[in-house]
């Protein structure tokens, strides 16, 4: 494929990756920002969302769109509820100690993965997209008669992928409104600023923590529900989203909503764009090192401010 269309396609694909990543990473960022703990089980919650989506779509049967809609509503609720339970049963009891939380959530990740393996099995299972039209895109080329439009091989996107981008943007906008315009958001932000002060002002910090943890997991699940019609539900699918979300959260600056979105775009796009220029595996190596070096030389993240 020529350079132009290739880059265009990489950007489109990168936008879809970024959209899902932004949702997933936002969940991690929220937990990280408010609770100051590293949730290693975040990828497992993502996977749970995908598996729940498959299960709900199976139950509903009927038209794919109906099953998908049901999954988009119910899967995040289920996963969020599960996460709140985990918060009450485990994290609250270790007092949100950073190191113990890491170990406990690693344990939780194993437990979730193996439980899903036993119940759901080792196969990758698809969920039918609600709609699936392919939209071919034109490109310009210079011909004898001047510039002309043509339709290169493969320069296309599906209607569903466009929907994923729009849905992610809508959910993020909703989250933004929740955090800035509502009482619940105010309470979360206050807890993020200074949990002792918040407690002194009568904020029920432990209940806020449970809700934030649930909301974080639900965001991961939403990302997963959006992605299963493109990819499939598989019990080991949580690894990549976990790693990428971590990177996004750090690059974006801890707990910063706009920073997380910008970083998700950056990471999602980098992968695609670098792969235009380099052989695929080399591209991955270069992209990984590039992000690592950004962290090394701007440890406060791209959007964060240096602390005195």
């Amino acid at each position: 494929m020529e350079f132009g269309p290739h880059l265009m396609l990489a950007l489109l694909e990168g936008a879809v990756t970024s959209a899902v990543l932004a949702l997933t990473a936002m969940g991690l960022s929220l937990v990280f920002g408010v609770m100051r703990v590293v949730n290693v089980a975040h990828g497992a919650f993502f996977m749970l969302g995908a598996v729940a989506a498959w299960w709900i779509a199976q139950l509903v049967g009927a038209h794919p769109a109906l099953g998908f809609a049901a999954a988009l509503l119910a899967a995040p609720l289920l996963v969020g509820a599960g996460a709140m339970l985990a918060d009450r049963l485990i994290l609250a009891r270790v007092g949100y100690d950073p190191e113990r939380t890491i170990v406990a959530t690693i344990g939780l990740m194993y437990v979730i993965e193996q439980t899903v393996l036993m119940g759901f099995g080792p196969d990758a299972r698809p969920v039918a997209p609600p709609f699936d039209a392919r939209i071919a895109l034109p490109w310009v080329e210079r011909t004898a008669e001047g510039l002309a439009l043509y339709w290169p091989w493969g320069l296309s996107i599906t209607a569903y992928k466009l929907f994923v981008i729009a849905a992610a943007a809508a959910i993020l906008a909703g989250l933004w409104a929740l955090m800035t315009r509502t009482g619940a958001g105010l309470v979360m932000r206050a807890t993020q600023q200074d949990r002792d002060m918040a407690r002194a002002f009568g904020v029920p910090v432990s209940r806020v923590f449970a809700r934030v943890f649930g909301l974080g997991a639900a965001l991961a699940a939403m990302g997963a529900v959006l992605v299963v019609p493109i990819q499939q539900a598989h019990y080991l699918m949580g690894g990549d989203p976990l790693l990428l979300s971590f990177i996004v959260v750090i690059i974006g600056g801890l707990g910063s909503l706009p920073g997380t979105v910008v970083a998700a775009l950056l990471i999602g796009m980098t992968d695609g764009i670098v792969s235009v220029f380099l052989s695929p595996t080399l591209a991955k190596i270069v992209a990984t090192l590039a992000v690592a070096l950004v962290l090394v030389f701007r440890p406060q993240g791209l959007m964060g401010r240096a602390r005195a």
Partner: protein
Amino acid sequence: MIDARRSLLLHGGIVACLALLAATLPAYHAGNLTRILVLAVYAMGYNLLFGYTGLLSLGHALFFAAGMYGFGLSAALGGLSAGAALLAGVAAAALVAGLTGALALRTRDVAFMIVTLMFAQAGYLTILYLGTWTRGDEGFVLPAAARRLAGFDLRGDGARLVAALTLFSACFLATAALTGSRLGRTLIAIRENEERARMLGYDTARLKLVAVVLSGTLSGLAGAAYAMLFGYVGASFATVQYSILPLLWVLLGGAGTTVGPLVGVALMFYLIDWSSRVTDAYMLVAGAALIGLTLFAPQGVAGLIRRKAAPWLP
């Protein structure tokens, strides 16, 4: 001073007990002991950085793999003898630790975790990218010459166990000596309060790099030894799984204790060994055990003993 004598007695006693076990255990458990001892060296390397210096790395698989591939490639492709290849593996690990450590130490806390993780990920992908020589994920079998050290054929179970025990004991006693030394105590000071240590005149930036290099070198030694003793080099040892394992071992056994790594590896090994007899979901049992551990014994087994019975435990 009494503590020092106690410490000598404890570490000497453990080595003696292990030797006794090695001589008496039935074949299956002797084989497990061999593996546990080598993996415990890896855990001790990790503990040096995490348990004693307070730096949580999620990228130690890079150092383990650097040792393993440094050994394996120089023996299989370079035709080096096992002894020379072992040195090459250790040197490779030290070099990689020095380079990545110098960069990663510009960050701290979670950013340090992520940067080390990403360096390790880049290392793993590099192994796959250089598949012509490394055979990627499939890996390669080491030639017989690479498994003969100082006249011993390490393909034999007896020689292998003796080699593993020797390696472990040397590293175990060395780390015990290190933790009691000026350097070791200074690293602990950095773990406890880095700014205070710096304002006592310690060059904490340099000392942390020293800790990364020591830790990486020991991890690389373990990687090289694992390849030499078990005859296989493969990319699965460079995956993120192998960065998380030493963290779990050390936490399970007791971070910042000399015996913790051994205890943690042995417990985890037998937890999986035992539960896999009962169920396929042995990782579920391991996961539940980790959760239980954080709830009920957060300082790990050795940490628990130190707190309850023996506060002098190094």
